[in-house]
């Protein structure tokens, strides 16, 4: 079955809007991370968040490991937030990240 599932697949926002991205992960996946792939293709670490809540500026993330989901919150979105947001977790052996298919975010001014 699907190990890491993200929703929604696409999101279009006006600048200034808030959004929530969701990641569901299976029992075989742990140690969630969130990445932003910008329009130039660079994969940037946002959060390493196996559990709990972290905040960094306008972004915050919460992982509820017992319920196998993680949420990424973007507040007061800006055009520079556009790109693809991936969540990923370790496989059972801890030898690879299993990536979701991503949420493509487009923020327009």
């Amino acid at each position, binding site marked *: 079955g699907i190990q890491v599932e993200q929703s929604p697949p696409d999101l279009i926002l006006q600048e200034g809007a808030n959004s929530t991205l969701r990641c569901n992960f299976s029992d075989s996946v742990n*140690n969630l991370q969130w990445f932003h792939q910008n329009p130039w*293709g660079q*994969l940037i*670490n946002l959060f*390493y968040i*196996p559990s709990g809540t972290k905040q960094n500026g306008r972004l915050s993330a919460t992982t509820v490991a017992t319920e196998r989901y993680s949420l990424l919150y973007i507040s007061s979105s800006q055009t520079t937030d556009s790109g693809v947001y991936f969540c990923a977790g*370790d496989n059972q052996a801890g*030898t690879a990240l299993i*990536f979701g298919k991503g949420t493509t975010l487009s923020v327009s001014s």
Partner: protein
Amino acid sequence: DARVTQTPRHKVTEMGQEVTMRCQPILGHNTVFWYRQTMMQGLELLAYFRNRAPLDDSGMPKDRFSAEMPDATLATLKIQPSEPRDSAVYFCASGRGYEQFFGPGTRLTVL
């Protein structure tokens, strides 16, 4: 600040040619990963090294791909011979513990 570096950033080659991609992990990181990203498959692991030893290359086509770490500051991924279906972005990542940090990628086009 510390970053994973990859060279070349772009490579266009003809089918049958050898391609070598290089990665310099972040100093002090003991794990190195090679991933490939395509539109169809998304991001998938090709190879994994811990303390320079290859631990998992099950995602890599063995007949044409090879990955090595000649020393702690260099990881290489070779394709020989290259095929059009190898066209993709190849990412190197390094880490210490579970968190991984990605390089800028090598965009490979095989004609």
